[in-house]
């Protein structure tokens, strides 16, 4: 692939490398695919009527990966990308996605990524999504991911959603419908600074008997940034649901958390925990007694919190 330094940096941040990975992949740069590969078990096909991919994972596929990172380095580019994952039964796959924007101009660059996962019976997916922005331009770096997960009987999905740094505005939507004995596990890490805004919402329907969901969101709001977290878990059957919003607020930032639990049956066990606060003074003091400066202590606490 012929990539600029900024594009290489984006792929390193969101995908771990800019080299061709093993397995199925699609590398997207400035609205176009610059490399695509299918394997015996995983087909990566471009959509014909709109921008995006259909990714088909065959039944019983085990241990394979799909890489679909996106880089935007053209200022003013605005795109909506629809990627649908059709996972067969009894499969186990890891999907590494993510998007980075390098903006060196004055116009906003926007990526709206809509990912839908249809996960077959007893299949397991691990989905890793990192978002990142950088560049000297005054134009915004805007990333709006929508993640929809539909889990059939006995299926499970582990989602790792991370916004590393530099994204000026984000509206993140995660929607899930969880079937019988299916399991959803979400780990979200979010950091905002300057005057960035971030909205993260979850709508999880625990429809199946013995379905479970666990959403753990940790965020740090620095400077004048604003965050809004909304999580609704609906218990429509005998199920267990848990969501936790844990935020560190710094400087002049603000964090607003709106949890909601909606139990439609007495057999639904739903829990929400929310904690918003500044970095505890005793944590800083403890690390200072071990030789860290106050700044180093804060950095260690933040990095640990977002790990």
């Amino acid at each position, binding site marked *: 692939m012929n990539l600029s330094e900024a594009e290489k940096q984006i792929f390193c941040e969101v995908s771990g490398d800019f080299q061709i990975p093993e397995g199925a992949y699609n590398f997207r740069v400035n609205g176009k695919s610059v490399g695509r590969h299918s394997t015996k078990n995983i087909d990566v096909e471009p959509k014909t009527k709109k921008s995006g991919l259909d990714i088909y994972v065959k039944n019983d596929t085990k241990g394979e990966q799909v890489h679909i990172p996106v880089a935007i380095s053209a200022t003013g580019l605005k795109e909506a990308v629809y990627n649908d994952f059709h996972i067969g039964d009894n499969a186990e796959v890891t999907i590494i996605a993510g998007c980075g924007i390098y903006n060196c101009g004055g116009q906003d660059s926007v990526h709206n990524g809509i990912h839908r996962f249809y996960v077959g019976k007893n299949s397991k997916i691990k989905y890793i999504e990192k978002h990142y922005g950088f560049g000297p331009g005054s134009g915004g770096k805007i990333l709006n991911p929508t993640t929809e997960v539909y889990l059939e009987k006995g299926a499970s999905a582990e989602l790792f959603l991370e916004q590393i740094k530099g994204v000026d505005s984000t509206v993140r939507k995660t929607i899930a419908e969880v079937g019988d004995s299916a399991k959803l596990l979400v780990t979200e890490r979010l950091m905002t600074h300057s005057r960035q805004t971030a909205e993260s919402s979850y709508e999880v329907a625990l429809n199946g008997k013995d379905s479970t969901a666990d959403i753990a969101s940790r965020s740090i709001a620095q400077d004048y940034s604003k965050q809004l977290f909304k999580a609704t878990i609906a218990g429509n059957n005998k199920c267990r649901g848990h969501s936790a919003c844990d935020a560190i607020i710094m400087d002049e930032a603000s964090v607003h958390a709106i949890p909601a639990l909606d139990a439609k049956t007495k057999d639904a066990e739903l829990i929400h925990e929310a904690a918003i606060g500044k970095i505890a003074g005793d944590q800083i003091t403890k690390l200072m*007694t*071990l*030789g*860290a400066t*106050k700044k180093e202590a804060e950095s260690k*606490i933040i990095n*640990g919190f977002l790990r």
Partner: protein
Amino acid sequence: MLELKDISYEVKSGGSRQLILDHISLRIKPGSFTVITGQNGSGKSTLAEIIMGIKTPTSGQIFWQGEDITKLPVTDRAKKGIAFSFQEPVKFKGITVYDLLNTASGELISKKEAGDYLKTVGLSPEDYLLREVNSKLSGGELKRIEIASVLKRNADLTIFDEPEAGIDLWSFDNLTKIFKMAKKNAHTTIVISHQERILKIADEIIVLSHGKIASCGTPEKLLPQIVKGEL
């Protein structure tokens, strides 16, 4: 040598001023094991925190190895060889035991080396090294991790604020071994404690009462009176 000269500490309380430490002066000899004891509210923990720099005295001076450290922040005191073990171990979110030991070391140490410190406090590295130092750990586990982090400092002066609080018998027995080891290595140790077994092994006991030094001397001299409640 640690020397405190005329240390006082006042706090505002409901419009009036309350004197927590009242003109304390003392000298702690290098390589000695000193226990500071006294009733609750006598000012013991405040004194320990003032030595570490966590609290700033209202008046007075602190000298460490001949240097006036009264205005030095906590980090600088730590770098000059003073370590502090908290009465209530601090809990984090996301920071692992390994992170804590790396911070204490000042550099990235091997997992094997970090694991050796955990073994010293009776914790299995396989089970604990990568665990978060959070509220899922029991009080005893947190205390052992706290002590391991302080041991990693290998400091010339270590202050333990009520180390016996919240620990199990195993940890208590090992604490006394740790204190004896520090003494053998010519490290200075100050322990805030009520515990008779710790008082017994002290070189010197300092008894605080109402923010003042009520008495100081050897365990042979003071322990009988302390046990009887006369001090």
